């Protein structure tokens, strides 16, 4: 540093720190608790989004994987799976892959949060007068942005292999909103898992393992009609099935799920919204409480 750098600025004798700080006393802004909870969550969400751009590899490979899934399922299974009532398997598949991918983003939340908690940085956050929920809100919102980017790239891939939006822009927008809302809800389950496990390595496995039955015991890849009756009941009531069926309805894709008579089959959107609300109502308070009590690992 040159001396010239120091020759600017003004003196504030009242300031602490060396007695020559140009900034005055720190002025704390007064707003409501709810405002700050939102503000602090947003500050950390911005931080997490900036981090995505700093480690582009994570995003790139996070996108390559679903693209690979789309291509593998479409070309390998596509010929072997018949859609009851007709229709293209590729058009059928894309909504399923969307939901699977956004669900697996919940595992990224587990890993990311577990990493946050294992570093000294969380002590800094805990020593600041910020909202206790901010680390979790910031993590889930940041992951939502990452999920949105992934969904956008997957949509382009889908369009390339023959998937189409058939029922207009408005219903498609609703479909995307429902998809992201479901992803956001699942990332709170991911939060709880990330806070409950003892290390980032465990989070890598624990964060993923529940997602396989969740996404495969559903109508995401194959029509549930072909399953044994007891399994079909489980698959029909799986939240993933409701969300996938909602997407297929809203995009105007083949949706044999609607042929059934159970509640999720008749009202997939309402059931999907209920699932999302239920997950958020349970896992937000659970995770925030866990965050307050969990020790650094």
């Amino acid at each position, binding site marked *: 540093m040159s001396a010239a750098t*120091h020759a600017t600025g003004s003196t504030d004798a009242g300031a602490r*720190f060396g007695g020559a700080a140009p900034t005055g006393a720190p002025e704390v802004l007064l707003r409501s608790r709810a405002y700050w909870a939102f503000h602090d969550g947003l500050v950390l969400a911005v931080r997490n989004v900036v981090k995505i751009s*700093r480690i582009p590899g994570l995003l790139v490979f996070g996108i390559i994987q679903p693209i690979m899934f789309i291509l593998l399922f479409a070309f390998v299974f596509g010929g072997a799976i018949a859609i009851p009532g007709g229709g293209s398997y590729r058009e059928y598949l894309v909504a399923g892959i969307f939901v699977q991918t956004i669900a697996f983003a919940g595992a990224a939340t587990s890993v990311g949060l577990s990493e946050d908690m294992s570093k000294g940085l969380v002590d800094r956050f805990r020593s600041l*007068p910020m909202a206790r929920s901010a680390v979790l809100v910031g993590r889930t919102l940041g992951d939502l942005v990452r999920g949105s980017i992934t969904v956008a790239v997957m949509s382009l891939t889908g369009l390339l292999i023959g998937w189409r939006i058939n029922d207009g822009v408005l219903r498609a927008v609703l479909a995307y909103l429902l998809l992201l809302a479901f992803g956001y809800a699942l990332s709170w389950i991911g939060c709880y898992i990330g806070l409950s496990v003892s290390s980032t390595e465990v989070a890598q496995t624990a964060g993923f393992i529940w997602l396989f039955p969740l996404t495969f015991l559903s109508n995401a890849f194959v029509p549930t009609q072909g399953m044994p009756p007891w399994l079909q009941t489980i698959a029909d009531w799986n939240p993933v099935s409701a969300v996938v069926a909602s997407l297929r309805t809203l995009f105007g894709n083949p949706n044999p799920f609607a042929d059934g008579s159970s509640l999720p089959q008749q009202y997939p959107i309402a059931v999907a919204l209920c699932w999302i609300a239920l997950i958020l109502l349970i896992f937000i308070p659970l995770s925030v409480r866990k965050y307050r009590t969990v*020790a*650094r690992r």
Partner: protein
Amino acid sequence: MPPGAGWRPLAGSAAGVPTFAYADQSMTAMRAQPAPSGSTSGSTHEAAAIVAEGLIVDYGRVRALDGLSLTVPTASVMGLLGPNGAGKTTTVRVLATLLVPNAGTARVAGIDVLAAPDAVRRVIGLSGQYAAIDEDLTARENLHMVGRLFHLRAGYVRARTEELLERFDLTDAADRTARTYSGGMRRRLDLASSLVAKPTILFLDEPTTGLDPRSRLTMWEVIAGLVADGTTVLLTTQYLEEADSLADRIAVVDQGRVIAEGTPDDLKSRVGGERIEVRVAGADVARTVTALTPLGTAPPTAEDETVSVPVTGGGAVLVEAIRALDSEGVPIAEIHLRRPTLDDVFLSLTGHRAEVETPPAPTRGRRR
């Protein structure tokens, strides 16, 4: 800032390696004077920045703090000295609102840590033994984020960020991610982060552990500069030398309790035992013992070619000893007055040496 103020390289630093000092403060003012009522036993703690009483913390079956009590006068530097596992970090974590103790009370800046943790968080800064910075963010982004989370006005945060970057010599690296920083730079950024809201009380948990000697000296100068204008500092360290050089008072911690407390000089004199040590040729040992016997508070002891005699009176006795040996015609190979080190203090207080080990595994405990 006026010309001449701020952190700047000191002229004449070795081999183009910059060292930093806060240039508008005389370095003789490195140690803040303890507040007049710096009593640790009095019942009034009005002038005390930190008062902890009877803190007990259990990590499962391990008792980390076992009734620790501590008083830190305002605008002073208290050094918590002890080996790993003594409870230093746990004490800081309780006082910095990170850990709820199983029993005991603590007030920081007069605020009850258990009853009003958020109010405490407004006035404290914490710089831990692991640099608490986001490695994927730049220095500027790190400081800005902390300022926003303190709910400070955006204009203040911007100005303060630039000010701290300059003071800690991070301006050139301000837009590089912290991942690329050296250990010393990370610690400086960590300390800068803890100063964004101008805390009145600063907790420094082993601020120089793991730093090379040059970075350590730089940190010492940085800390001394902070202390010079009235920040109260609670510093933990396993380096005896560090506590001796930075702290007004030292609390020696062992097994979750403060086992001794006082100024560095107090502690040394408590151990007592200044000694004069002389090295002479083997043939002269007997004559040396004879010559030094009248000066000692106990008979001299000889080991190989070194004669050691306990004395009182410091430098004056040393001069007498040299005169006595000179008049006997004994050539002196080496002579010195040895005052006890803090290592000796520790040994005599605890019966074991203060061992500097690798940092302990992070611990579990109840948190907020």
